[in-house]
């Protein structure tokens, strides 16, 4: 009796489903009324296949993913490049741009400017002569050394090879250059006190 009833209901349902399909044409199963479950999908949908929803595996995974994404964004924000240390020599101090400090440029007479131009030309001639003399002196010295090494080679190969070896003890070579006045013998220099105001930057 129940079998017949169930078959009859099934037949009615399918006939009604077919009729609705025929009426509405090919339509999305989602648009159909919830009462008309297409039998084919009943068995294959995943949530219905599994156990009743417990919300354990997927959501923790999703939460972890969210946290990782947030951490990555924070790290990117924190990765600030270190601030460059300013080069104080390249920053013009505001003192120099002060207009009240400008000097009145003096007007030069014609003779003054002429004499300056002539002195500059004389100076360039003087410096050129000095430079040529220096170059000539250096070339003479080099020629003398070359001759010396040639003569040494003619004399003895061993001494020649010894002469060509570099001297490791020569460098670093330091020598105090000339000052305006000679050093005072046995001079006791006073201690110089100074406040070191150099700015130290840390990155």
């Amino acid at each position: 009796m129940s079998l017949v009833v169930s078959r009859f209901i099934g037949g009615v349902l399918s006939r009604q489903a077919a009729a609705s399909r025929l009426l509405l044409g090919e339509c999305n199963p989602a648009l159909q009324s919830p009462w008309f479950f297409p039998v084919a999908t009943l068995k294959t949908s995943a949530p219905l296949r599994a156990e009743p929803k417990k919300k354990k595996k997927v959501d923790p995974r999703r939460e972890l993913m969210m946290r990782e994404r947030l951490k990555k964004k924070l790290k990117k924000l924190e990765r600030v490049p270190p601030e460059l240390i300013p080069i104080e020599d390249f920053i013009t101090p505001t003192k120099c741009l002060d207009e009240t400090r400008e000097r009145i440029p003096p007007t030069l007479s014609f003779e003054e400017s002429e004499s300056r131009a002539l002195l500059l030309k004389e100076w360039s001639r003087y410096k050129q002569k000095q430079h040529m003399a220096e170059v000539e002196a250096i070339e003479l010295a080099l020629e003398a050394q070359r001759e010396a090494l040639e003569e040494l080679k003619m004399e003895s190969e061993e001494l020649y090879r010894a002469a060509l070896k570099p001297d490791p003890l020569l460098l670093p070579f330091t020598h105090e250059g000339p000052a305006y006045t000679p050093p005072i013998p046995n001079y006791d220099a006073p201690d110089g006190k100074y406040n070191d105001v150099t700015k130290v930057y840390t990155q």
Partner: protein
Amino acid sequence: MAAPCRKMASRSFSQLLCYFSRTAVGSGACRRFSVTSIDRATPRASTAADRATSPWSLMAAVCLQRLPVITADCSPIEQRFKQMLQQMELEKSMLSDHELRLMEDAERMSRRQADDYDSDEDLGDQEIMMTQDLEDSWEQRLKNFQPAPRVRADIDEDLTSVQRCLADSLVLLAEQQVGAEKLWLLPQAAWQEGETLRQTAERALNSVTAAGVKATFLGNAPCGVYKYKLPKAARTENSVGVKVFFFKAILADGTPGSAPTASLLWLKKSELQKYLKPAYMMNVGRFILNL
């Protein structure tokens, strides 16, 4: 076609220039110093044989220089140029803090002396020092310091003192017995077996000066050579002449020791002519730079 022709032309032109300059100056125009390849294949045994057959005996000499201690005086054109440069720089510059203070003080003085002077304006001016007073105090402090004199005529006359002519570089000269006569020349010593020429030069320096003299030798290579043939009477088959190799050294700072063993002179390059023989002077003058 034009490009290769131009290149060839320029190359030949530069060669021409090189040739001309070489003949004109007597030394190469380009500052190349070619180091010939060291012959490693020659066995050591041949060197002793070389020395035995060579008719030249070797000596090494040292060219010890005391570099200038003070700056040289400016020549007239240098002085004029220095003054002109200072003037030009002053004109192009801006007012400094000190100058601004001077100007303010001058203004304040003129305000004080004006007829409508209000003494309430400057309160607490008594504590502030006038800039002029500051300048005077600085001048006073400078006068309290006495630097050593630049030129001392009596020491300059003494040719044996190493403190003479502090503005020029001096060369050490020693009177040594060469053959039959005593000559003024750069301190030299004969080369002995088993030492390098530089060690010979160091020995020459130590024998002539006192023990406390410190000199830095500039490298192992000689800077010049002087060849001379012995007089015909002294010539034998094995010794025709002498080759003297010169080595440069710089006198280190510090007071020299007590009286030296032999007669020594410290001379400027211009004074060397009076003491050295002409041929020797011409040779040695090449590498003694007056810079």
